[in-house]
């Protein structure tokens, strides 16, 4: 799946230009047939008839030059939930205990128990502790227990190489970019939620305000300007790592080089590009 720079670029540009013009033609024919372009909701982007959209027009950014990757060192996570708060604020994620682009899970084995007790900050007990569905914290429920082992695991969209959410989307509104992110064209999504079903990781949700599906974008608006995703930016312990896999000196390349990493649910064949250190067999 690796793209050869240079050669691939020209070929792709030609094909995209062709598809774009094809799309424009199809969109205008469709609009003429129905007598109004508004019905299609996306005629301005002119990408009808192509499942894969044209590259975003971001000044100074070429998605062929990047291949983003995400790392999580679960050993480092302290469950402070700055990442969750930052994500909600940065991306205007619906403030409730049921809509998250990223979340943190807590695994606790009590003395003598075989299986862990698992919860996230969305757990009713934790919401009660925070006092609001709009604020997040882990309560102190194990204070008087004998804890055998415990750790946190941050979760996020895995931006899979073979994303099942993309393959099931009936319109192509959700797509994999050439730089590795899985995004959604909100103006084209019909809100069928087939992708919500198909994601094995529960990373997608239906936004009750916009009536379309939502998910993590790795803060695409930030990373294409050379910034880090909000969750990575605010993590006080560097549990979240982000960078360009094409760049040998990037944080993520270093992370992958220096660690033996795992991915979540490898048996699905989705091939996540979110790599973990410090997982446990009980984490799924």
């Amino acid at each position: 799946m690796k793209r050869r720079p240079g050669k691939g670029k020209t070929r792709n540009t030609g094909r995209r230009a062709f598809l774009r013009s094809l799309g424009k033609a199809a969109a205008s024919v469709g609009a003429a047939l129905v007598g109004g372009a508004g019905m299609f909701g996306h005629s301005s982007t002119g990408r009808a008839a192509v499942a894969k959209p044209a590259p975003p027009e971001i000044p100074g950014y070429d998605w062929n030059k990047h291949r983003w990757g995400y790392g999580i060192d679960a050993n480092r996570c302290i469950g402070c939930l700055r990442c969750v708060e930052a994500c909600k604020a940065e991306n205007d994620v619906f403030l409730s205990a049921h809509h998250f682009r990223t979340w943190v899970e807590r695994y606790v084995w009590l003395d003598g128990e075989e299986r862990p007790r698992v919860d996230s900050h969305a757990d009713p007990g934790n919401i009660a502790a925070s006092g609001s569905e709009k604020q997040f914290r882990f309560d102190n429920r194990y204070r008087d227990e004998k804890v055998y082992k415990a750790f946190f695991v941050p979760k996020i969209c895995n931006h899979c190489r073979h994303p099942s959410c993309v393959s099931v989307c009936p319109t192509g509104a959700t797509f994999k970019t050439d730089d590795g992110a899985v995004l959604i064209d909100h103006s084209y999504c019909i809100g069928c939620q087939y992708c919500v079903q198909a994601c094995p990781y529960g990373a997608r949700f239906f936004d009750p305000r916009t009536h379309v599906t939502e998910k993590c974008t790795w803060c695409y608006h930030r990373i294409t300007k050379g910034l880090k995703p909000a969750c990575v930016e605010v993590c006080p312990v560097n549990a979240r790592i982000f960078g360009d896999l094409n760049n040998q000196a990037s944080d993520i390349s270093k992370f992958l080089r220096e660690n033996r990493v795992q991915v979540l649910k490898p048996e699905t064949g989705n091939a996540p590009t979110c790599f973990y250190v410090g997982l446990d067999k009980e984490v799924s």
Partner: protein
Amino acid sequence: MDAVFHASPYIGYVYPNETIIPWTVMIVVYPYMTGLVAGAFSVSSMYHVFGMESFKPVARFALLTALCFMLFVPMTLLLHLGQPQRAFNAMITPHLTSAFAAFGYFAAFYSILLMLETWFAFREDNVIRARNATGIRRSFYRALTLWSDDISEKALSFDHKWMFALAIIGIPSAHGLHGYVGFVFGSLKSREWWGSDMMPVIFLFSAIISGIAVLIVLYTLVSKIRKTPIDEACVRGMAGALWGFLMFTLLLEGLEFANVVYKAKEGIEVIMEYVTGPLFYRYFVFQFGVGAIVPIIVLGLMFMRSVRGKAFIVGAVICSLLVLMNVFLMRWNVVIGGQEIAKTMRGLLTYQDPGGREGLTAALSVLSGPLILLFILTRFLPPWAEMSEEPEPTQ
């Protein structure tokens, strides 16, 4: 903008986003209705293609039933979509890797096929009605025939050829349409309860039994309303088919469950907790027991003891009602059941009716739509053999 959402209560651990169950009862009704379409069409084909004379009294009625249900199928999806006004995006730019993208094409193709088949099936009657009528009625029936009023023997044999050909295409189309609905669920690897190769086949067989059952119920009901004698041979034929297919369906559903349990893959603990807990009555008692085993035994006994007359009709209708419940529960237990088992395989959710356009009331309204339409359509296009050449279609 109103931001209304319905979070489901749960036990154990579920992913935070999972607390909002994406597919509601509307997506239960969707496969239920496509199943009725496929099943009703099968009944119609038993006469039109396979020439089984006992099915003749309901052949055209079955066709109308299939058509009425088919016209309401898209309604379930439109009510479910977050952005229904963009529904045609899936047809304008179908994303070919999606099992859902082809729905628009399949449904459109099959609806047209059904309409053509119906047109041919009623053309001769409509021509005669137009000839015997005057004024607006005449124009109406002439329009229904699309101004083709040739009912010479040659023209009629041409019609029959077409009907036969359309039915031949229609059988795989109807079953394709429905098997594909099963594939929509069976092809998802994210849910252990759905991801099974047997899902399309199970959907198909349950479709056939639901179609036969709905026709037994509707045919006897309509005969009662019209105060016409019920053709017992016809009901007997349908009940026999129901009995046979029901056994296959039960076997397949049992096999599917046995597979899940016997393979005992990751998360089997939570699945067992689910089927022995919240699902016990819905699944074992009502879907398998009351909805399948009871009708199989009752129908079997009735055939064995050669029960005839009113007793047979009553028995067949009761069994059909049970089968209709069985198939609805099967859809429910697949669609809602699959979503009640969390993807974490550590928790169980409880579906709650969201109300509104995706709620149970809306779903039942959609489900009653085809019945109302069928009632109206049979006024204009009486499918009954004894009325086919009468000048006056209504009493």
